[in-house]
């Protein structure tokens, strides 16, 4: 027993010693918590940055689940236990407020923040900022486009109603006609609702996240969901579909439209090259004719864990991981839209496998944001719960939703 305690104390002492900075004892080992990006571009970036650090650090990748709820739970559990191995965290854009408010990330000093985000899209930088401090550096951004089959739809629809009319016409002709969109009860459905509310000219919460807004645009959004649910455009399994189910259904040829992120493009080129040639892209359909749509901005940012012992090295590594070269690889191999603004007009990049760059750029400049509040997760759960399944979304439920969101932002009540 005594020997065991002694050994434990010695082991702890040794850990403390090596944690001090690793001066002269080989490179510091940083741990990057990130989901398993399917093209492997993140793992390659980690290896390249380790090699380029001249022995200052190596980046070990710790894989998180692929769905964002699972990622958040694993991060939160470790952070709440003050895990000091949390050097670099990959945060969904909606978590910034929550993680910053809970003290799980360290803000970057102003000068460093300016340097790290130099040349990046202002909208993306805002997603990593909370109370005027940069907590996370944008790694990639994301926004949905309307993807359509050029062989079935010669002219892409501009509004939601036009899209449903096109689908109805195709259905009558017995051709593929589904609109693939996220309808399962989860975050993606909240994103759909948010995009619809924004495209109708409204918002869910006010700017500082303290009050519920909703109102007439929310009614329009619910009507749009109902219209799709009760039209031939709705895939029968819509109410259980997530982004990847949509991609799969589109690749197998049963759909004419898809509202989804650009990752579907490299995937289609790999899985169904013939179909990939016939994919067209346009702006997300709007609800107000003549006005631009406001598809919801997404993406991932990199933050430094509050209990990391290697903040300086982590900041350097983040600078490397979000560098131009790495963003180009993430974009072309993985379909992840870059956050460096001038890439969108860089002809070499566009020709290298990102033909829809200008459409993404337009969508990003018009992008809507999700409610900015530390309680975002609860707000999202309430929205997805109250308006599910899509076929039962109704104006009557909006009153219920208003109360549920008001409770959620004050962390009152149960979440579904």
């Amino acid at each position, binding site marked *: 027993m005594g020997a065991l305690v002694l050994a434990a104390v010695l082991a702890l002492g040794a850990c403390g010693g090596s944690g001090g900075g690793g001066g002269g004892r080989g490179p510091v080992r940083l741990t990057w918590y990130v989901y398993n990006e399917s093209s492997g571009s993140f793992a390659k970036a980690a290896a390249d940055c380790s090699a380029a650090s001249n022995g200052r650090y190596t980046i070990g990748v710790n894989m998180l689940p692929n769905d964002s709820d699972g990622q*958040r739970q694993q991060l939160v559990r470790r952070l709440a236990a003050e895990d000091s191995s949390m050097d670099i965290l990959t945060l969904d854009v909606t978590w910034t407020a929550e993680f910053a408010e809970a003290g799980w990330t360290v803000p970057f000093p102003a000068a460093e923040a300016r340097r790290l985000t130099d040349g990046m899209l202002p909208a993306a930088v805002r997603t990593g900022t909370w109370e005027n401090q940069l907590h996370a550096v944008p790694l990639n951004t994301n926004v949905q486009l309307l993807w359509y089959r050029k062989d079935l739809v010669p002219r892409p629809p501009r509004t939601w109603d036009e899209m449903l009319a096109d689908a109805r016409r195709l259905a009558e002709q017995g051709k593929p006609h589904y609109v693939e969109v996220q309808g399962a009860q989860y975050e993606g459905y909240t994103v759909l609702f948010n995009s619809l509310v924004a495209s109708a000219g409204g918002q869910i919460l006010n700017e500082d996240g303290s009050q519920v807004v909703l109102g007439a645009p929310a009614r329009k959004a619910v009507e749009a969901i109902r219209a799709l649910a009760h039209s031939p455009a709705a895939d029968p*399994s819509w109410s259980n579909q997530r982004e990847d189910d949509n991609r799969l259904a589109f690749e197998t040829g049963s759909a004419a439209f898809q509202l989804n992120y650009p990752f579907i493009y490299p995937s289609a080129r790999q899985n169904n090259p013939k179909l990939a040639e016939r994919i067209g892209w346009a702006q997300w359909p709007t609800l107000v004719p003549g006005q631009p749509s406001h598809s919801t901005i997404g993406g991932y940012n990199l933050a430094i864990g509050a209990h990391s012992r290697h903040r300086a090295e982590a900041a350097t590594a983040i600078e490397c991981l979000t560098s131009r070269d790495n963003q180009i690889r993430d974009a072309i191999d993985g379909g992840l839209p870059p956050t460096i603004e001038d890439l969108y007009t860089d002809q070499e990049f566009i020709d290298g496998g990102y033909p829809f760059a200008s459409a993404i750029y337009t969508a990003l400049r018009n992008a809507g944001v999700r409610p900015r509040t*530390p309680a975002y997760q*609860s707000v999202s759960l309430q929205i997805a719960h109250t308006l*599910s399944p899509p076929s039962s979304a109704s104006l009557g439920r909006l009153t219920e939703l208003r109360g549920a969101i008001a409770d959620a932002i004050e962390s009152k009540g*149960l*979440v579904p």
Partner: protein
Amino acid sequence: MTANRAELSARARAERRLGWALCAPAVIVILAVTGYPVGYAVYLSLHRYDLRFPADSEFVGLANYATVLTSSLWWQALAVTVIIAVISVTIQFVLGLTLALAMHRALIGRGLIRTVILIPYGIVTVVAAFGWRYAWTPDTGYLSGLFGDAAPLTSQVHGIAVIILAEVWKTTPFMALLLLAGLALVPEDLLRAAKVDGATAWQRLTRVILPLMKPAILVALLFRVLDAFRIFDSIYVLTAGAYDTRSVSILGYDNLFTALNLGVGSSLSVLIFLVVALVAFVFVKGFGAAAPGGEGHR
């Protein structure tokens, strides 16, 4: 004589002390690993404690319990849990008893039959649940479209039915095994005597076999009801609690790990603990006469 007795009792006392001393480490360890978390959960349930707003933590008394008990989500989850527990255990009992009788009477390949029947129970619940999920997935699943509903996992009634089916498939073998052990308690002579007296097969089952099996039945039902009440993994994989198919455990998980509201989440856990304790108490008191180790008034 008296001196001798005093000596004996002193020795008995010493033995008792030794017994306690020998037990003490185990008791302390059990208290530490079970008592502490339970106590901490009760402590948390009396506080407003949200990981996202650590600065706002405060003692709120029973407010979290009021929040839970006035929420329709809790009552709905409780109803779903009770429905799943009652229906699945009932089906499991009937099927399990049938299987147990068949296994008991099997003349050839007894060992093989018992092993084959146990296969579903040997499969990890999460793995089995994934199997069911894919089976019911539209387009690709071999069971989708069986009821005409395009996506059975996206409606409350069908979702719960699939969850119950998965539970029944998974744990009927365990029920059968427990009941088989109970069947071994029934003496052959008694059955033969009943037969000679002219009892039909049904009468032999209800008047002789089942009463004698009562202790085994109690254990089987108690285990299964408590397990079914804590159902989590099947639902998590099949529907993740969407479309109002969540059980109380899923509700607790969502509030603890997704909403990070430790106060409300802990009060949910404590309530689940109390309900489970109540169910166990009712079982043991209600059918307690035949409980193994009980007095056994026959």
